[in-house]
């Protein structure tokens, strides 16, 4: 499709949907609040709105359609369609309904908390955060509240690692902390010597992912936790990469005080073009008083169980409206229920097997490598450094060319400590055939890069559009973050 911008499809007088009539008395608005100019929204019939968005949807490559192993660190896995039905069942529920009228959904929250507590080893879990990053922020808020309540107001530093998600650093900064970032050592793992140098009386917490986004499990993780504890800091586990270790090892058993999961990664809720997602914060008993409000508790009542909302006294307050992203909590609950303990372990083991199998295939492609040659759990960050040096083709360009074959990858977050990076995470959802096909596509593109680098650099060729000139997007004079800005800056001269 060569689908225009929606404003170009508008014709005055058309309507996509009709609205009920006022019925009640007319209300005259004072001039100070009355809208003067009608908003220039598109005017289209219903079919035409639908057709436009259906065409746009076909110009998008959802997980369900492609082999999405290139979205490493994001744990792209099958989100069962039946769980969408459960999510939709929450549509009519209003978050201010009286507890008595939402016992079903509260029970799901309570059961889900118990299951995640078992999976993490933590004593309580909040399902309120809207995403992994929001969960990280919530954990930092709890860390701050904990220290403030325990005479640690002076602790103003948070330590994190370079291969942890940027939100660990950014959320800590937003919460007012100085951020210390540990760089990888010669093995590619966070440098324990750097940690020893960094900890001290100002240390509020260590925020660390393991395995980090490289997919390497840090076997000295307990030393990290113990070191931070030794100076009175808290240890907080970013479990975004938990998919390979479900049922194998648990946050609390390593000594962590807090952890978080991304329900949209490990627990299969859909990624929705970038949210709504859902995060879960697990805490050890000492942190319970600080949990976001409210919590869902179970009480016995006349021999019956009943689920109620409680407001912890020292709560950090609200992280997001109401109890959380309920449709996704429901989906994740259903997903765990469909697998059970044995199933979750199969998830972990199969994700790890898939990753090691794919790594084996990728490393057979001339020019591809994986830094530090370590063992990998559920994903791996690779490098095209050698190929790039030979051909001048950059990793991003190879990924774009791969899109011509219906797959793609991303290069991960800046900065590129691993040169010419790409990160592959083949979760348990994929069949061997998918991995073979994915590796074959990358091998093909790498070969193209050797034979005709300019061709690869010119990609894409069979996508909706061709190579974009991104320069205007960083120029305030040219950038156009809305259609009205575009019309003003780029079209008004023509009109």
């Amino acid at each position, binding site marked *: 499709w060569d689908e225009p911008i*929606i404003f170009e499809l508008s014709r005055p007088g058309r*309507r996509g*949907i009709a*609205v009920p009539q*006022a019925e*009640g008395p007319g*209300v005259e608005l004072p001039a100070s*609040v009355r*809208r003067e*100019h009608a*908003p220039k*929204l598109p005017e289209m019939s219903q079919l035409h*709105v639908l057709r436009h968005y*259906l065409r*746009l949807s076909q*110009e998008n490559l*959802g997980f369900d*359609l492609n082999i999405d192993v290139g979205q490493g660190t994001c744990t792209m896995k099958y989100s069962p369609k*039946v769980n969408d039905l459960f999510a939709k069942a*929450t549509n009519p529920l*209003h*978050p*201010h*309904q009286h507890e008595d*009228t939402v016992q*079903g959904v509260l029970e799901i929250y309570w059961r889900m908390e118990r299951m995640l507590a078992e999976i993490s080893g933590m004593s309580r879990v909040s399902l309120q955060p809207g995403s*992994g990053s929001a969960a990280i922020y919530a954990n930092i808020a709890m860390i701050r509240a904990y220290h403030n309540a325990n005479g640690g107001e002076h602790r103003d530093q948070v330590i994190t690692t370079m291969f942890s998600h940027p939100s660990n650093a950014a*959320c800590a*900064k*937003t919460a007012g902390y100085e951020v210390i970032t540990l760089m990888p050592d010669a093995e590619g793992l966070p440098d324990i010597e750097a940690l020893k140098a960094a900890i001290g009386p100002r240390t509020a917490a260590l925020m660390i992912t393991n395995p980090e986004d490289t997919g390497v499990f840090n076997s000295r*993780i307990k030393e990290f936790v113990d070191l931070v504890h030794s100076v009175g800091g808290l240890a907080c586990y970013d479990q975004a990469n938990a998919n390979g270790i479900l049922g*194998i*090892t648990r946050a609390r*058993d390593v000594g962590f005080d807090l952890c978080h999961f991304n329900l*949209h990664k490990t627990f299969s809720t859909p*990624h929705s073009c*970038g949210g709504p997602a859902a995060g879960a914060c697990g805490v050890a008993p000492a942190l319970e008083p600080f949990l976001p409000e409210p919590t869902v508790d179970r009480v016995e009542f006349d021999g019956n169980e009943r689920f109620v909302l409680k407001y912890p006294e020292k709560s950090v307050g*609200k992280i997001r*409206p*109401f109890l959380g*992203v309920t449709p996704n909590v429901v989906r994740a609950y*259903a997903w765990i*229920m469909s*697998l059970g*303990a*044995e199933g979750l372990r*199969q998830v972990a083991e*199969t994700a*790890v*097997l898939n990753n090691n*199998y794919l790594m*084996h295939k990728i490393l057979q492609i001339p020019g591809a490598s994986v830094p530090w040659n370590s063992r990998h759990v559920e994903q791996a960050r690779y490098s095209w450094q050698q190929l790039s040096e030979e051909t001048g083709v950059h990793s991003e360009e190879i990924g774009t060319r791969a899109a011509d074959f219906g797959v793609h990858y*991303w290069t991960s977050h800046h900065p590129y400590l691993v040169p010419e990076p790409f990160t592959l995470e083949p979760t348990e959802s994929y069949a061997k055939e998918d991995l073979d096909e994915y590796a074959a596509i990358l091998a093909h593109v790498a070969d193209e890069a050797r034979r005709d680098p300019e061709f690869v650099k010119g990609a894409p060729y069979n996508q*909706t559009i061709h190579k974009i000139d991104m320069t205007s997007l*960083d120029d*305030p004079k040219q950038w156009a*973050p809305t*259609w*009205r*800005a575009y019309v003003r800056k780029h079209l008004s001269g023509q009109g």
Partner: protein
Amino acid sequence: MTHPYIPNTEPGVRAEMLAAVGARSVEEFYADIPAELRLNRPLDLPAPLVAEQDLVRHMEGLFAKNVAGLSFLGHGSYAHYVPAVCDEVNSRSEFLTAYAGEPYEDHGRFQALFEYVSMMGELLEMDVVNVPTYDGYQASGTAIRMACRYTGRPKVLLSGAIAAEKLSKLRDFLSHDIEMVFAPVAANGEIGEVEIDDTFGAIYLETPNVYGVVETRGKELADLAHANGALLVVSADPISLGVLAPPAAYGADIACGDIQPLGMHPGYGGGHAGYIATQDHEPLVAEFPSRLFGIAPTKVPGEYGFGDVYYDRTSFAHREEGKEWVGTAAALWGITAGVYLALMGPEGMKELGETVLSRTRYAMDALGRHVTVRHRDAVHFREFAIEVPSSGALLDGLRDKGIFGGVALDDRTVLVCVTECHSTDDIDRLAAAVKEVLGA
């Protein structure tokens, strides 16, 4: 049996793959995990419901424990009508299961989100709108932070007419380094006397506010803020903007709010997404933490591409050196709100606003015959507060009649919400029930 979600558990393929890698068992891949960190027992979880049908039955059993009623609940989550096309589009696998592809294979997502921000821009009369953040709470918190960063002044004057839960979020998010000063609520339900000086970075106003009252002094507050070198930040409900003036029209510098009313179901709080908007003023644009999508040329003349505007602002690019943080927020709800606005068009938004204004007034009149309606002379949009002997007793009594009558703001105040989904018959039923419960 091979689990339907995990194809490679089938023993044959497993063996084949292990052989290819040269491993004897999956255990080898876990060699880095020390024995003392291992969980040497199965997780203690409920027995699985592997058959989809058994799972459905289990879930239906849980959902059967929820109860429906004629609902006048609002206070941050609103049951506006959701057009079927909105759900159709956001249920599409292509959108529902996509994530973060590049602007080529994910052209559709980029365009749909660009169109969403563009339509919001028209509604708000502002040139810069973010790809949605989590919710209206977060949007307000970030908008205030943006104003404080922009002005270099960590101090904000906030309207006192804010929902308690939202305030809980704002305190957590702001108070460690931003001073929060509150304006009183006037007798008419609007913001009361406001005094600021040049230490303030922003005035923060909500309209309609927590009492459903439409604030009429926006222009005055904008002038006051600007006279003191501060910004005016206004949280406005976009569903009202077919009839109400957008914040930009009276001089607000940053608009923010929640787009849940634009096509998202309440979903027990699952339908939220936040917007933040400004004019195209580079230093203020620089303070956005969220992603901004812009239109860009491709190597084929006339073709539109899309990409990130000013990506360097973000934590994705510069970790703690970026503005706050950006993560997975609520993009799908942005796409959905775009569908909603395209369906409604200018006329639909106007008519909807008129219908809500009218039915709100009808409800105030109907309930006003039995109870005291607060701020009765103010302009109300969708919500209003009534004074009753006991909030709990009234709501319990109504619930026994199958009516969710409103949200208790305190022991004697109930907030009633009326949208286009309430017919005058529904409202009459509420009024009659209120009379009955109070009269008993």
